[in-house]
């Protein structure tokens, strides 16, 4: 064991973990800046401008403010669960980055069941929301938590089923192999991405992913007009920040998964000298992921929230049948070809 701890393999792994964890945490902080700035632009406001050029130091100011704010714990709350809930929602959200391939070798570990691992881990994230709402011992958080758990169970089904078609084509559950299978092109121009083979699955995935991350137009769990702030109404200071970090981490995860499964992950045109070739896959990957993130933020700024019964009906009666039909059609085509 001592041998392993001093081997170069272990050191490389630690460096990978540090780079990915640090990069992800930095990106999450700046996601809040990006979201505020973009929302402001859509609403004809300048957004944060005071701290640093273009308000670029705003996340740091926000972080400091979060640290120095008073940490309020309601008197009639369940103290243990109230403190545990933000941790329970943040840890799974960050754990899923351990299997995401940011580049050909920039991946902490390539599990043989990587895709299922992400679904398993993110399905645990709902406990953070449910416990946070329940432990607050207050009506708005409880309503938000109940809505959120019902919503997440419903949309997890179509989210998971939409992926099955891709898995049948790629014949693997490992994220690294999924990306590798999408290299090369058809006829020399069209990239071999799964989006061209599974467009229906992609649309279902995209919609269910929005619902899974509790974002507009599906953010019934924290709809401000009805529930103040939903499950995190009673949270303040750093605990609130942890909930926000978890939400942003989930957005990045679903965007990264969409890129990996439907848009070829880190694949892309390669050119230039050796050093550039090493960096290019990661650049392509991050570019594709950020397109999805832009899409999510723009959707939040433009689409109104839907009603709760509409949300449930849409999930069970529209998305679920579509994803089931997609599986049947795909398996038929895979079987005859």
């Amino acid at each position, binding site marked *: *064991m001592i041998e392993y701890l001093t081997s170069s393999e272990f050191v490389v792994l630690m460096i990978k973990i540090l780079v990915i964890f640090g990069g992800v945490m930095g990106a999450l902080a700046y996601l809040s800046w990006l979201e505020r700035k973009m929302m402001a632009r859509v609403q004809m406001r300048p957004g944060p401008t005071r701290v640093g050029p273009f308000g670029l130091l705003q996340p740091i100011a926000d972080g400091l403010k979060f640290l120095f704010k008073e940490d309020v714990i309601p008197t009639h709350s369940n103290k243990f*669960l109230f403190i545990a809930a933000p941790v329970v929602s943040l840890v799974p959200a960050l754990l899923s980055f351990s299997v995401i391939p940011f580049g050909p070798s920039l991946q902490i570990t390539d*599990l*043989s*069941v990587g895709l*299922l*691992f992400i*679904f*398993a*881990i993110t*399905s*645990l994230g*709902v*406990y953070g929301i*449910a*416990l946070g*709402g*329940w432990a607050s011992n207050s009506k708005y958080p*409880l309503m938000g*938590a*109940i809505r959120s*758990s*019902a919503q*997440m*169970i419903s949309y*997890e089904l179509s989210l*998971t089923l939409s992926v099955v078609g891709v898995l049948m084509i790629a014949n693997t*559950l490992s994220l690294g192999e999924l990306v590798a299978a999408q290299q090369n092109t058809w006829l020399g121009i069209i990239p071999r991405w799964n989006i061209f083979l599974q467009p229906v699955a992609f649309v279902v995935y995209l919609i269910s992913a929005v619902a899974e991350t509790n974002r507009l137009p599906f953010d019934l769990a924290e709809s401000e007009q009805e529930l103040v702030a939903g499950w995190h109404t009673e949270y303040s200071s750093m605990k609130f920040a942890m909930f926000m970090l978890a939400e942003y981490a989930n957005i990045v995860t679903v965007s990264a998964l969409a890129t990996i499964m439907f848009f070829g992950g880190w694949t892309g045109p390669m050119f230039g000298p050796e050093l550039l070739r090493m960096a290019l896959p990661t650049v392509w990957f991050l570019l594709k992921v950020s397109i999805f993130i832009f899409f999510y933020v723009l959707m939040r700024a433009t689409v109104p929230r839907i009603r709760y019964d509409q949300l449930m009906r849409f999930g069970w009666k529209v998305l679920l049948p579509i994803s089931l039909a997609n599986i049947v059609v795909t398996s038929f085509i895979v079987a005859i070809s």
Partner: protein
Amino acid sequence: MIQILFFFFAALAVGAAINVLVQKHVMYSALSLILMLTAVSVLFILLKADFLAVIQVIVYAGAIMVLFVFVIMLLNLPEDEDGADRLRWLKFVGIPLGLFFLVLVVTTLWNVEGSAGTQQQIVGSPAAIGQSLFTDFLLPFEVTSLLILIALMGAVVFAKKDL
């Protein structure tokens, strides 16, 4: 290393399982059950059954227990609700039944040959599980799915008075 991990997570699973029974508050019991299921899934990983471990978390910890927690939240049960009086007679059935299961487990373990180590990698992979489900265990697999379908229909019938 693997042995340390095994003993740690095995102890965690047993401790959490005991905690399910000891806790007075039903929410803590449910949470301990989630902890127990997750610890067991780590034991599956140590046995190189990755697929089984992940499915365990998705199905039990991620779906079924969410429903448990959901219902507990909806009912908002008072703390320390004591329903034990009504179920006192269960003690006299439960202890012999538990002993019976213990004997069953011990005799099964006694008869297992201890040399399955080389085959585990192949047995635990998703492809191998799919293969055996659709060849050797096709009938039990299909019968189970039929059973689940019937249970689903039964739930719908119960939930809706007039269809």
